[in-house]
C-alpha cells in the first residue's frame, strides 16, 4: 500500500514538474471550419511535442486583424502564432514584423507548396507565412438550371456568357436568381470580387506612378456591367450580401450561378446543408478575352511574429499544422473532402482527394491562373490580385467598397461612385506620399 502511494506521489510530482517546464504558445485564429478542425486535432501535436502547450484565441476576422496589428506594432508579445492573410504578409515582412520560416524541419517539403500561394507569402525568396488553406475564386453553377436554359457552361466562360446564362436562368416566380455576387461593402467583401473582376476588364487601382485609375473607361465598364447584371439577375437586397449570405442563397437553390471563393465548393456540395449538393458544376472565373480572368488568390496562413520569445516552439507548431502529415491526419479522421485545400501540389495529385473533391482540378487551375505580381492586363506598381498590398488599402478599399455598394443599391449613379472613388483614392495617395 505504501509503495503504491509512493509511486502515485512520484507520478503526481513528475506531472507537476513537467507542467511547470512545458512551454505554452498562444495561437490567434479565426473561426473557419478548417481552423476549428485544427483545434480539435491538436492532441496529435501535443503528443508529439509534450513540452509544448497550446492556447487558442479565436476572434472575429476584423477584430483579429485589429488585435494582431496592435500587438505586433507595439511588440505586445501576446501571440506566438498568428493567422494572417495574403494581404498582410508582404507588408508585415517588409516592416520586419515577422520571422522568416527557416526552421520548419527537414521533412517539411516547402517546395510542395503551390507556387502561386508560396509567391504571395514570400518576400525576397523567403517564406514569411505558411499557408494553412488557400483559395481562388471560380464559378459555381446549377447544372440542372443550365440544362433547362439550353446552355452548356464552358470550362472557361466569358463575362458575356455569364450575362446571357444569368438572364436565361433567372426565374423570379420560383425565387431563382440568375447570379449571386458579393455586394456588401468592405475591402475583403465586395472589393475582393470587384477588384478581381476589374482585372479581367483590364482595369487597375493605380498606374505605374501610383495615380488612381477610377476615372478610366475600364473601371466604368467593370462597375456598369456588375450593376447591370445584378439589377437584371441578382437577388433582392444584394448590396447587403457577402460570402455567407450568398452561400445560404445558393444552398437553398436560389442562385443559378455564384462566383466566389473556391472553398465554398465544399459547403455547396455538402448534402447535409445544401439542397443542391448533387447539382453543382464548376468553371473558371470569367474573362473578357484580355488574357486575365476575374479570379483572386488568398491564403489564410500561419506566421510567427518577430516579438515572440518562443520562436522555436511556434515554428514547430506552424510546421505541424501546414505539413503533408497534417493533411493525412485530417483525411484519416474526417475524410479527404475535409482536408484544408489549396496549399500543397501533392494533394491535387492524390487520387483519393480527386475522388472525394470533384472541384479539386478546377480549384488548382483557378489558383494557378492568378498571379499576384501581374494581377491585371496593364503593369502595376503593387502586389496583390484582389487587393493592393499597401497599408492604406484596408481603409481605402472599404471606402471605395461603400461607394460601389451604394451604386448597386441605387443610392448613387455609377459615374458618381467612380468619381468619389477617384477623389478618395487621390486624397489617400497624396496623404501617404505616393503622389504629389
Amino acid at each position, binding site marked *: 500500500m505504501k509503495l503504491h502511494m509512493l509511486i502515485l506521489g512520484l507520478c503526481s510530482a513528475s506531472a507537476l514538474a513537467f507542467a511547470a517546464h512545458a512551454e505554452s504558445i*498562444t495561437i490567434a485564429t479565426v*473561426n*473557419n471550419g478548417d481552423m476549428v478542425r485544427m483545434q480539435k486535432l491538436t492532441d496529435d501535436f501535443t503528443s508529439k511535442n509534450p513540452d509544448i502547450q497550446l492556447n487558442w484565441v479565436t*476572434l*472575429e476576422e476584423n477584430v483579429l486583424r485589429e488585435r494582431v496589428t496592435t500587438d505586433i506594432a*507595439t511588440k505586445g508579445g501576446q501571440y506566438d502564432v498568428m493567422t494572417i492573410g495574403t494581404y498582410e504578409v508582404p507588408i508585415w515582412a517588409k516592416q520586419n514584423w515577422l520571422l522568416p520560416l527557416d526552421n520548419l524541419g527537414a521533412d517539411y517539403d516547402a517546395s510542395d507548396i503551390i507556387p502561386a500561394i508560396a509567391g504571395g507569402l514570400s518576400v525576397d525568396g523567403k517564406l514569411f507565412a505558411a499557408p494553412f488553406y488557400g483559395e481562388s475564386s471560380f464559378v459555381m453553377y446549377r447544372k440542372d438550371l443550365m440544362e433547362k436554359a439550353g446552355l452548356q457552361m464552358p470550362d472557361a466562360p466569358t463575362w458575356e456568357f455569364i450575362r446571357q446564362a444569368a438572364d436565361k436562368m433567372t426565374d423570379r416566380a420560383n425565387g431563382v436568381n440568375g447570379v449571386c455576387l458579393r455586394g456588401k461593402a468592405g475591402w475583403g467583401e465586395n472589393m475582393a470580387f470587384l477588384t478581381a473582376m476589374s482585372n479581367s476588364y483590364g482595369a487597375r487601382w493605380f498606374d505605374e506612378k501610383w495615380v488612381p485609375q477610377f476615372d478610366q473607361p475600364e473601371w466604368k465598364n467593370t462597375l456598369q456591367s456588375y450593376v447591370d447584371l445584378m439589377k437584371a439577375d441578382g437577388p433582392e437586397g444584394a448590396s447587403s450580401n457577402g460570402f*455567407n449570405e450568398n452561400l445560404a442563397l445558393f444552398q*437553398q437553390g436560389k442562385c443559378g450561378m455564384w462566383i466566389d471563393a473556391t472553398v465554398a465548393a465544399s459547403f455547396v456540395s455538402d448534402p447535409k446543408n445544401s439542397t443542391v449538393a448533387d447539382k453543382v458544376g464548376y468553371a473558371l472565373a470569367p474573362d473578357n478575352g484580355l488574357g486575365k480572368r476575374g479570379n483572386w488568390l488568398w491564403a489564410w496562413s500561419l506566421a510567427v511574429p518577430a516579438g515572440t520569445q518562443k520562436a522555436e516552439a511556434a515554428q514547430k507548431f506552424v510546421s505541424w499544422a501546414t505539413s503533408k502529415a497534417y493533411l493525412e491526419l485530417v483525411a484519416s479522421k474526417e475524410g479527404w473532402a475535409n482536408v484544408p485545400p489549396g496549399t500543397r501540389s501533392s494533394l491535387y495529385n492524390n487520387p483519393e482527394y480527386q475522388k472525394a473533391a470533384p472541384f479539386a482540378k478546377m480549384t488548382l487551375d483557378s489558383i494557378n491562373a492568378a498571379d499576384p505580381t501581374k494581377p491585371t492586363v496593364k503593369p502595376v506598381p503593387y502586389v496583390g490580385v484582389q487587393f493592393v498590398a499597401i497599408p492604406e488599402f484596408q481603409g481605402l478599399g472599404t471606402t471605395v467598397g461603400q461607394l460601389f455598394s451604394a451604386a448597386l443599391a441605387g443610392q448613387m449613379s455609377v459615374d458618381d461612385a467612380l468619381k468619389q472613388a477617384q477623389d478618395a483614392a487621390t486624397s489617400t495617395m497624396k496623404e501617404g506620399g505616393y503622389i504629389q
Partner: protein
Amino acid sequence: MARTVTNRHKTIATAAAWIVALLIFFPILYTIITSFKSEQEAIQGFNLIPSGTLESYSAVEDQSGYFKFFLNSVILSVGSTILALIVAVPAAWSMAFSPTKRTKDILMWMLSTKMMPAVAVLFPIYLIFRDFGLLDSRVGMTVMLMLINLPIVVWMLYTYFREIPGEILEAARMDGASLWGEIVYVLTPMAVPGIASTMLLNIILAWNEAFWTIRLTTTNAAPLTAFISSFSSPQGLFWAKLSAASTLAIAPILIMGWFSQKQLVRGLTFGAVK
C-alpha cells in the same frame, strides 16, 4: 367619472409599459429563438418559430470551454465592483456631506471621461498594460473595468447619499462615532438599497463590457464577451451558433437581474420622486 379616467389611464400606461418592455426585450428574445434554429433557418429571414434543434448548443459546447470564460466574467465583474465601491463610497460620502465649491465641477469632470470614445485611448492603455505586464491578466482587467465604471458608481452613490439627512450623521458624531464608524455603521446601513442597486448595475455593466475585454485579453483573463466574439465566421454560416453562445453568455446576468429586479428598481428610482 374620475375613477373611469384613472382606470383608462392605468390601462393605457400598463399597455404602453408592456409595449416598451417587449420592444427592449425583443432582441434578446430573438437571439434566444435563433439559438434553437439550424444555421440555414437562422439566415433565412424573420421567423419566430424555431425548429427547436439543439445542434448549435452542442457545437458551442464542443468548440470551447464555456466555464473558463464564465469564471473570468464572474471574477472580473464582481472584483471590479468591489474595488469600485471601496473607492467610490468614501468619494461620494465626501462630496455629499462635505461639498466644496468645486464638487459639482469634479462630478461633471468624472462623468465627462465617459463621453470620450474608448478607441481614442486604445494605444496608450495598451502600451501601459504591456509595460506593466498586465495584458491578459485578471488583475489588470479588474482595475480597468473598475476605472471604466467608477464615474457612474460615484454619481449614483452621491445621489443616494444626498437623500440621507446630514443631521443623522451629525447625531452619530455627537455620540462619539469616528469617521470610519460613521461611514460603516450609520451611513452604509441607511444607503444599503442605493449601494445594492449600484453594485448590481456595475456588475451588469462590467459583465457586458466588450471593447476592452476583447482587446486586452487573450486566454487567461478572457471573459464571456471574448467567448461570444469567437463564434463569428468569415466563411461559413454562424448566426445560430453565435446566438447560442450569446444566450449562454447572457443567461447568468439575466437570471441575476430577474431575481434582483425589485432591488434594482428600488435603487434606481431612489430619490426620483420627492
